[in-house]
């Protein structure tokens, strides 16, 4: 049980990182597509 908990404790962080990466990338792609539609620079 302790091994399982420690494993979950260590591996939960890369999973959370992957989730944040997904959120940020999706938002960036939407902003980039919108800026292209509007004909303006993304930043």
């Amino acid at each position, binding site marked *: 049980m302790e091994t399982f908990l420690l494993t979950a404790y260590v591996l939960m962080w890369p999973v959370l990182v992957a989730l944040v990466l997904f959120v940020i990338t999706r938002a*960036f792609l939407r902003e980039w597509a919108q800026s292209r539609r509007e004909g303006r620079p993304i930043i």
Partner: protein
Amino acid sequence: MPETELIQFSGIAIVLLLVAFYGGTFVVSLLIGKKEENADGYMTAGNKVGFGISAASMTATWIWAASMYASATSGYTYGISGPIHYGLWGALMILFIYPFGRRIRAVAPRAHTLAEVMYARHGRSSQLMLAGSNVVGSLISLMSNLIAGGVLISLLSPFNFIQSVFAIAGGVLLYTLWSGFRASVLTDFVQVLGMLGVVAVLLPIIFFAAGFPAAFESGAGNLTAQQSNFFSSDAFLNQGAPYIAAVLAYAIGNQTIAQRLFAVREDLIKPTFITATIGYGAMVIGVGMLGVLALYLDVDLLNGDPNNLIPQMAALFLPIGLLAIFVLMIIGALSSTADSDLAALSSIAMADFYGQTVGKENAKPKTMLLIGRITMVVATAVSVAFASMGLSILDLLVFVGALWGALVFPVIASFYWDKVTNKAFTVAVIAAVAVFLPVRFSWISMDGLVGPIFDIISVVGIGVVLGLMAFGFFGLRVGKIVGVAAALISAPFSIGFLHDYATLSGSLVTYAVSTAVCYLMSARSTDSFDFALIRQRVGDFDETEDLDDELARFDEIDPDPLAGGR
């Protein structure tokens, strides 16, 4: 555990890696480069950056080399809770500034630096205190990242430390110089993709390659009772608590956070900062787990230096191709912070030292841009020089941290309370630093009644820290209740022994003294400042805009600052 002989990349391989990385980021910066950069855009990118880029930039900026190295060292030293006591509180530095950030943007929507707003609110002395501390902090950060990069490359290649420092410095300057903050932010996005992607993939690979989860059982005997305890008091008192005390100080004192606060589209402040908090925390704690794994494996540190821990673990368990990618991840982390520091320094020089000196109406945008670029070059040169000399910056870092701690209450109060005066602000900061120094460096004996007296002051500091955090999210009434309750609850556990922890005591007395002095002097004031004046005094320096930029401008929000709930 056998001693590690670190893999050495050939000179050609390292050069190709660095050219690929910095060349790539330079190309990205060229994509957004303009022949005639706008001075305000150079500093805050037009105040309407979207969520994706802002969140990525905030995450990348806050993750510097020290974040990862210190988190891993914390894991190796304090065991399983070590990375939490570094990464969690560091992440909260981002989170706890955002409620104040909304008020700051409402009061000064077109500001470039916090110091600029302090000039409009109070005057020169307040501005220079904040700007000066920002400059020193950014220079230290820049130097630290160059040193970290220099050590890493010299460890893994035939190049020496100074050559490596020059390579990193040159690479960062190359892509940041022309477009300033805009280049910094966009390249942050590319860099954070790499950083987060690498951690998400390589950490599990190292975990399984190192023989986990079985090694949790075989290596359990390598941990002390404190190290295997998730609720380790050792880890909390030596790592977590001092860091909690520093949460608001670093958030207020760091121009890289404030710059992103002013850059992001105003209605996106909350999601940006929450996402950056989670991203930073997950990444840094995740990398910190390498220290915990090393502890279970009984890894001997190369040369006894904890800064070698991360390269060691990566070199032990990753094939050379993945190791190269891991190295790029660290270079990305330190470069993203270094370019943010350059952008921060240039904005302070442009807005605070030039813009406010000649006045908004007289400021010449082209001169401003030139000053910004020269600042970047000079800052890089100074940082390279100090990094090459191998000077100890720890004492300077401690002093700047204290100054930031002394600034927290006066700065925050200045945005909400119309009675705070320039004199109260200045005297409070000076008094707080004057009390901090003897406590932090143990210049005075804590024998007899002296220790408990400082403990009582520290208890007030605990109330101030937690009260301010609660005020930001829930308003004045809740802030006061939490502050008083925190002080009363912590008193029996703190009085009589807290003075044994000089770092923690130093931070807490700083908060207490600056708050008490600022409050008592301001309460007696008959002044009543009109906050609307700030919006008039702080604005764009460069009125030339693209029509497309103007079409995309949004209205500002104006929240009631003292109401509950955010």
